[in-house]
């Protein structure tokens, strides 16, 4: 029998038609939408006289441009307000479930999907947002699409794409103290580069991956796109089932048993040949931070910025341009550099475990005076848990304040913008020029590293505070 990878199994089960020398007609189980990439899709859908074919397969939430304070008031920015209002109208008109601002399950689309149990193993999931890859943590094929494709899914529940090539990244071994899943993924991207995954769908495997919690797995799959990969996934296991059990939209009773029996078959056959494989050792991974303007430009927090040795002319030019933007020099050490802002949040690291590790770290300490801190929960659910567990109080005692859920400074479409020229150490996923506001300088790192920076005011390896360290599970 032909050996199949997990990716093959899910993909092949969703192909309605294969066009010779063309794409597959690919069925989508779940479609997430938000206020920014859906309005034009709805507009074009209506212009062509089409309807949403299966409205119950789409779920909406406004997250990208919403304010993170005073969410109960009218949104001040006129254009943002229009997009959110348009989303409400469109959902109502087309019968799409909406988790609106201020309601119990509002939040970043990639945080609420898993939290509600909407995301389940074996599914195909798309959203007009590249970090849809987050859902791959559950053993799904999940990826970002453009607005034309959002319209396709509305009209036909399908998109047309050629199957990606398959890559497997295996990380074996045990992570050291103070080293998190964010460090694993920043380490991998630094090895493979920001374009090294282009054309591939990645399966993550190995003992260091299966030891991770669901939330930590989501952090890894989330950033697959930062290597250029279409998405990433991890085979479902007991950790996955445990997480999903009892969630609002997860199957119940007999249905649950049936579902789990099926989910257990979702794994790569032994002996499957991948188009490309990489192997890493967890023991080689240390706390990581980026110094440049793409996520592949990462080093150990205790390391130095690479020199230009061995680069050709055009590489050299792009590299120096990037470092100029950041105000850094080749060969420099990063430790001890003064930072102005920290951001904890986003669909990469805005979940409860992230807030827990930050709170545990800063407990009994004080925020550095030079730091402005934005801590933004990924969802209302996360916010509620943070209040219940006393995290909010711990944060406040240390001089921080928890804001309200949304994408916030991850892409700075709302008011949470890092001013031009200022440095931000951020738990989000992109350090592109201007990503966090025009002229902003972003360094990506784990929540623990961000917490260490928030306390010292400068770039710091969290392991310098060894007694506060909590082992990520």
């Amino acid at each position: 029998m032909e050996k199949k990878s997990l990716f093959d199994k899910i993909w092949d089960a969703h192909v309605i038609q294969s066009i010779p020398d063309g794409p597959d007609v690919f069925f989508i189980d779940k479609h997430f939408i938000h206020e920014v990439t859906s309005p034009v899709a709805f507009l074009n859908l209506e212009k062509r006289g089409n309807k949403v074919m299966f409205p119950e397969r789409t779920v909406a939430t406004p997250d990208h441009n919403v304010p993170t304070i005073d969410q109960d008031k009218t949104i001040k920015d006129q254009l943002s307000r229009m997009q959110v209002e348009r989303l409400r109208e469109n959902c109502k008109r087309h019968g799409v479930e909406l988790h609106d601002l201020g309601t119990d399950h509002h939040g970043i689309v990639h945080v609420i999907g898993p939290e509600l149990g909407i995301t389940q193993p074996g599914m195909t999931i798309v959203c007009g947002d590249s970090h849809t890859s987050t859902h791959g943590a559950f053993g799904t094929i999940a990826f970002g699409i453009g607005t034309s494709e959002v319209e396709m899914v509305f009209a036909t529940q399908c998109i047309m794409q050629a199957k990606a090539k398959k890559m497997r990244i295996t990380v074996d071994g045990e992570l050291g103290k103070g080293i998190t899943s964010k460090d694993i993924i920043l380490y991998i991207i630094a090895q493979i580069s920001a374009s090294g995954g282009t054309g591939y769908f990645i399966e993550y495997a190995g003992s260091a991956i299966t030891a991770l919690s669901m939330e930590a797995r989501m952090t890894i799959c989330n950033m697959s796109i930062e290597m250029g990969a279409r998405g990433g996934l991890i085979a479902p296991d007991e950790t996955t089932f445990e997480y999903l059990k009892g969630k609002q939209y997860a199957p119940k009773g007999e249905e649950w048993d049936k579902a789990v029996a099926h989910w257990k078959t979702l794994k790569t056959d032994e002996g499957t040949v991948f188009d490309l494989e990489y192997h890493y050792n967890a023991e080689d991974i240390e706390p990581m931070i980026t110094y440049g303007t793409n996520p592949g430009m990462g080093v150990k927090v205790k390391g130095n910025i690479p020199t230009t040795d061995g680069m050709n002319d055009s590489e050299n030019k792009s590299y120096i341009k990037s470092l100029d933007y950041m105000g850094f020099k080749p060969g420099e050490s990063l430790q001890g550099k003064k930072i102005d802002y920290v951001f904890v949040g986003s669909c990469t690291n805005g979940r409860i475990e992230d807030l827990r590790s930050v709170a545990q770290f800063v407990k009994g300490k004080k925020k550095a005076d030079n730091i402005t801190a934005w801590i933004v929960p990924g969802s209302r659910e996360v916010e509620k848990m943070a209040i219940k567990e006393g995290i909010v109080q711990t944060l406040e005692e240390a001089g921080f304040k928890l804001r309200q859920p949304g994408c916030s400074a991850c892409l700075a479409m709302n008011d949470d913008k890092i001013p031009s020229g200022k440095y931000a150490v951020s738990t989000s996923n992109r350090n592109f020029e201007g990503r966090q506001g025009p002229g902003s300088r972003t360094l990506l790192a784990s929540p623990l590293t961000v917490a260490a920076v928030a306390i010292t005011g400068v770039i710091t390896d969290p392991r310098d505070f060894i007694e506060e360290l909590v082992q990520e599970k």
Partner: protein
Amino acid sequence: MAYDKFEVLTSRVVPLSSENVDTDQIIPARFLKATEREGFGDNLFRDWRYDNEGKPKADFVLNDPTYSGKILLAGKNFGSGSSREHAVWAIYDYGFRCVVSSFFADIFKNNCLNIGVLPVTVSPKFADELFSAVEANPEVEVEVDIKKQTITLLSTGSAESFDINSYKKDNMLNGFDDIDYLLNLKEEIVQFEANK
């Protein structure tokens, strides 16, 4: 019919040699607030094109009157990052119909094909050749022929063929898009869904 048909394009070229140009540079997030697909061209490469006061930066290629044309010649790994189709809308709206690079990011390339901007992947060597030719003489023209799948530097006759699958090729030639195709499969789709 979703967009203009595209068969042969002969045009001058605008060169942008930076590598790893991501979609946040092509169109910064703060310009994604429209609810219609119009007017994005004004904000194409916004932060490279204009300073904080909104004055054009003289050293950016789109502000340099020496260069014009419907073909954008881009550096390696063009269009990485966000899946925002707005990036391609901005490129289209500005007046480009074709982007040439030695390497494209995946989602970006897909988005291009969906709205009728042709992404042409060339070898690094041919890309260098194009950059040098345009640098030496901004008036040189390039011809892109979808039917023959060739890209030709007209001043020297140097040419290369490029890949495009026959389905997308037909779409570009006829100005059809995927939705036209999918709507014809409605019954199969309903059947498939019912068996889920």
